[in-house]
C-alpha cells in the first residue's frame, strides 16, 4: 500500500531563515505518527505544507497518494487539519460551527445538519451543541475543532493532521483528546500529530520523528528511540563522602558506559539494562559490604532523555547528562 504521507527533501525558508532543511518523512497508512520537536523546530511549517496551506520552497510530498502542489484539491478532500489554535467561531454554537464546515465541504443543508449531529454525538458534545462556543472549555473547543475537521463523509478523511492538539489543555481534556485520537486511528484514519510533549508521542505514536532546527534528528518507534538514544540507569545515593568516592571508583571500574557523579548530592548514576539480575549484581559489586549505598532508584529510559539528548545544542554525548531526578 502506498504510504499515507511521503515527503522527499522538503525545504522552506522564511526570508533568510531556513525553517525546514531537506526533510524526508514516510508515514504508513493507518498508523499514528508523531513529529516531535522543541518550539521553532519546524513542526507547524511541516504540517502546513503537507496540509496544502503553505507551499514548500523545494522538495516534493504526496499525501493520501496526491501531490500537495499539483493536486491540492484532491489532497484537501482526503485530509483534515486541527491547528494549534481552535479554528472555531466563538459566537456560533457548536452545531452551527459544524454545519457551516459541513456545508462548505459540499454537503447540502439537511445532510450537513445530520452530519453535525452525528459528530456532536461522537465527540460527546451533543448536550453542548446548542450553546455558543464562547462558553466551552478548552477541551470541548479542541474536540469541536477535531469534529469540524471530520465533516466530510465518514471514511473520506484518510489523513488527519493535528498540530499540537493538547497544548494548553488540562490533564482530563488531554486524556479525552487522546481517546478521540485512538478511536480515529482504530477506525483506520492515519493520524499525523506534532507535539512537544514526549509522553503524548510515547502513548499515541507508532512512529516518531524527532525534528530539530528543520532537520530530522532521529526516527523510529518509541521503543527503538529509547534504546538507541537513552538508557536505563541505576541512581545511587551514598551514605557519606568517602562512600561516594569508593562507589565512584568501583563503578568506573565495572562499567563500559560513563558514570555520572554529583559529589555534592552524594549521588551517582550507573548504566544498567534494567533487569533485576543486573541491578542486584551491580549493587553487590559496587558495595560488597553493604555499607556505602544509602538509597537507590532505577531510572527507566524515557523519551525525555531521547529528546534532551537529541535536541541539546551543546551536543553532549548521550551518557554525560545530569542524572534525572525521578
Amino acid at each position, binding site marked *: 500500500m502506498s504510504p499515507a504521507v511521503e515527503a522527499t527533501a522538503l525545504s522552506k525558508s522564511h526570508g533568510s531563515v531556513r525553517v525546514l532543511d531537506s526533510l524526508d518523512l514516510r508515514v504508513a497508512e493507518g498508523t499514528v505518527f508523531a513529529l516531535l520537536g522543541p518550539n521553532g523546530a519546524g513542526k507547524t511549517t511541516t504540517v502546513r505544507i503537507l*496540509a*496544502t*496551506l*503553505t*507551499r514548500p520552497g523545494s522538495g516534493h510530498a504526496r499525501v493520501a497518494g496526491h501531490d500537495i502542489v499539483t493536486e491540492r*484539491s484532491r489532497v*484537501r*478532500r482526503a*485530509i*483534515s*487539519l486541527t*491547528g*494549534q*489554535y481552535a*479554528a*472555531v*467561531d466563538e*459566537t*456560533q454554537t457548536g452545531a*452551527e460551527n459544524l454545519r*457551516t*464546515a459541513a*456545508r*462548505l*465541504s*459540499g454537503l447540502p443543508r439537511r445532510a450537513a445538519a445530520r452530519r453535525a449531529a452525528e459528530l456532536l454525538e461522537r465527540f460527546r458534545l451533543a448536550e453542548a451543541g446548542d450553546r*455558543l462556543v464562547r462558553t466551552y472549555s478548552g477541551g470541548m473547543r479542541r474536540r469541536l475543532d477535531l469534529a*469540524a*475537521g471530520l*465533516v466530510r463523509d465518514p471514511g473520506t478523511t484518510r489523513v488527519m493532521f493535528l498540530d499540537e492538539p493538547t497544548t494548553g489543555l488540562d490533564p482530563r481534556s488531554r486524556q479525552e483528546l487522546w481517546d478521540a485520537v485512538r478511536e480515529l486511528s482504530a477506525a483506520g484514519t492515519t493520524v499525523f500529530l506534532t507535539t512537544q510533549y514526549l509522553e503524548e508521542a510515547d502513548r499515541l505514536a507508532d512512529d516518531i520523528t524527532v525534528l530539530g532546527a528543520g532537520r530530522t534528528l532521529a526516527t523510529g518507534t518509541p521503543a527503538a528511540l529509547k534504546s538507541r538514544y537513552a538508557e536505563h540507569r541505576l541512581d545511587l545515593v551514598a551514605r557519606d563522602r568517602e562512600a561516594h568516592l569508593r562507589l565512584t571508583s568501583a563503578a568506573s571500574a565495572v562499567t563500559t558506559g560513563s558514570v555520572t557523579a554529583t559529589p555534592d548530592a552524594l549521588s551517582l548514576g550507573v548504566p544498567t539494562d534494567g533487569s533485576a539480575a543486573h541491578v542486584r549484581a551491580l549493587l553487590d559489586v559496587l558495595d560488597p559490604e553493604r555499607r556505602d549505598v544509602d538509597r537507590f532508584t532505577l531510572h527507566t529510559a524515557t523519551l525525555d532523555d531521547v529528546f534532551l539528548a537529541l535536541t541539546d545544542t551543546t551536543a553532549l554525548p548521550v551518557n554525560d547528562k545530569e542524572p534525572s531526578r525521578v
Partner: protein
Amino acid sequence: MSDALSSATVLAGRGIRISRRNLDAVITSMMLPIMLMLVFVYFFGGAIDTGTRYVTYVVPGVLVLCAGFGAASTAVSVSEDMRLGVVDRFRTLDVGGTPFLAGHVAATVTRNALSTALVLGAAFAIGFRPAGTAAGWLAAIGLLLAWITAVSWLSAALGLVTRTAEAAGAVTFFMMFLPYPSSAFVPIETMPSWLHGFAEHQPVTPLIESMRGLLLDRPAGDAPWIALAWCAGLLTVALAASGCLFRFRTR
C-alpha cells in the same frame, strides 16, 4: 463556480449569524450615523444654507456615511479570521480566497441594507420628505448598494494586510472620512478653493449628487454614471488587490 457561490452563501450566513450575536457592535454602527444626522440637522443645520431644508440636503450624505461605517467592519472581521486561523479551516475545506471574501462582503451588505433602512426611518421621523419616483428610488438604492459592495470589498482587502483588528479598524478610517470633504454636509462652494478640486472629483460627491437627484426627483445629469463608474473601478481594484493579497498572505 457553483461551488464558489454556495461557499460564499454559506459564509455570508455565518457572517450574519455572528453579527446578530454581536448586537452591541451592530447597534453602535447603526446608531452612529443616526446620531450624526441629528447633530447635523439640529446643531449645525440651522447655520448651513443649502437652498433647501437641511434635512433634505443631508440625508443622502448620512446614508453614504453609514455605508462607510458598515464597510469598515468588513476589514475587522476579515483580519480576525486571518489572525485566528479560521481561514485555514476554510482553506482545508477547499474554499478559495474569493468566496471567503465574498461571504464577508455579502454579510456586510446585508447588515448595511438594514442600517440604511433604519437611518431612512429616522430621517422620515425628523421630516425628510423625498419626492423621488419609484424608478428614482430603485436607482438610488441600487447605486448605494453598488457603493457599499465596492467599499466593503476594498475594506476586505485591507483586512488581509492588517495583522490586528485594531489596525484593520484604523486603516478603514479614510472610508468613514471621505464623505466630509464632499458635498455630503455642506455645498462644495463654501469650502476653501484649494479643496474644490478634490471635493468635486472624489467618488462620494457624484454618488451623493445622484442620490439627491434621484430621491428628490431633480435632474442629476451624468452624476449617476460617474458614480457607477467609480463603484465599478473601485470594485475591480479591490478584487484584483484582494486576490493578490490573499495569495500573498497564504503562501
